[in-house]
């Protein structure tokens, strides 16, 4: 009886530990480097499997990346004035629809990315503070050109988290904000969230 209780308790404890692994102390540049390298390694070794079943890759990307994104902060930036006074539940729902959408697009993008190069993390530049910083990276293309991809990070209680990505100078947050906040003002957040989930709002590359 006692043994059973202990087993149950310890399982519950380890499960909760796994769910909340504590604050992530890594620096933003390290997070970007480790995450992308691990993902691309996994992708390279299981490419055939993922090509056959893209949902599997989406799941993996979701599992590895969601905890590194401040979905709530991104959502608030995107909604702007349209989100003023919004119920927390609706806001959370919108935030998770956005991050699901973004991550599955990212996973699909990864799958079409054939080059076996790894992104190069560039040295820190510009305004960086204790609370906000940008990690600059670039992907080398087959023809010798580069695609610059920057990640904006902010410090949270769980460590550094990304909240914006900028590709060739085009910010995900700014671009979505200008598309979505008028829609929310017009149609309401529930309809917009449902449309995002249904895949009716596709914007970025």
């Amino acid at each position, binding site marked *: 009886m006692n043994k059973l209780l202990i087993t149950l308790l310890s399982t519950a404890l380890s499960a909760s530990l796994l769910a909340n692994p504590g604050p992530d102390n890594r620096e933003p540049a390290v997070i970007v480097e480790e995450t992308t390298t691990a993902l691309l390694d996994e992708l390279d070794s299981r490419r055939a499997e993922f090509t056959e079943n893209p949902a599997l890759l989406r799941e993996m990307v979701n599992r590895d990346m969601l905890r590194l994104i401040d979905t709530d902060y991104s959502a608030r*930036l995107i909604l702007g*004035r349209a989100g*003023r006074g919004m119920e927390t539940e609706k806001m959370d729902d919108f935030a998770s629809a956005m991050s699901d959408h973004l991550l599955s697009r990212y996973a699909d993008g990864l799958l079409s990315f054939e080059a076996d190069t790894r992104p190069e993390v560039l040295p820190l*530049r*510009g305004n960086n503070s204790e609370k906000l910083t940008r990690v600059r990276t670039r992907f080398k293309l087959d023809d010798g050109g580069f695609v610059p991809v920057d990640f904006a990070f902010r410090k949270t209680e769980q460590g550094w988290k990304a909240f914006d990505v900028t590709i060739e100078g085009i910010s995900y947050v*700014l*671009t979505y904000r*200008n598309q979505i906040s*008028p829609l929310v003002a017009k149609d309401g957040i529930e309809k917009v969230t449902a449309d995002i989930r249904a895949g009716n709002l596709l914007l970025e590359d």
Partner: protein
Amino acid sequence: MTARCLAIVMVAIMAFGSIGCSGAQVQPTDPQRDPWEAYNRKVHAFNMGVDRYLMKPVAKGYDTVMPDAPQRGVRNFFRNLSYPVTFLNLLLQGKPEAAMDATGRFLVNTTLGLGGFFDVASKGGLPRFDEDMGQTLAVWGWTESRYLVMPFIGPYTVRDLLGRSFYGYFHPISYMVREYDAYYLIAIDLVTLRAELLSFDIQIQNASDPYVLVRDVYLQNREFKIYDGEPPAPDYDALLEDF
């Protein structure tokens, strides 16, 4: 001749636009950077029509017929031709070393790259420079400029349109057009450029406001180029204050 054609088209758009859209009030989406939004939206709609019935079908045909490698070659060729413009503007922006590198690139690609069709310089690690007179004017201090959509040639700012009319003079293609009426060069440049952008169509079509999407992408990417790939971060706090 062309200037007159363009003027006629402009007048036609204004007239047609004001008849077609009278009464429909557009809520301004960015009065600061885009105070001419109502006019710009009309020209945007006109351009989308030209694109749909002319540019896109031709570009699609070209994309279907021409394999990827020669397509890239043609784009490399046109990019290599913009060297005089790049060189001049690097100098005007006070970057003589970069201007020398650009010259190296041009020489390598013109000779080893067989007239510019192969971008051997990039493969060898010589970076590509992207400079024009509009960027130079921005570096000189004209940082804010109104958004302006032009018939046929698309998104601009007043600054960048002015810049284009300056630097256009130094571009080998406009020289060929001036001296030899080689208009076909412009046509090839435009069609191949359009073919390169075909993959973005789906995003623009699916956007809830394609006009705003094109404007955002253009203005943000322009800023990115002006700062040579290192623009200041957006003011995220200001976005939240709005909240």
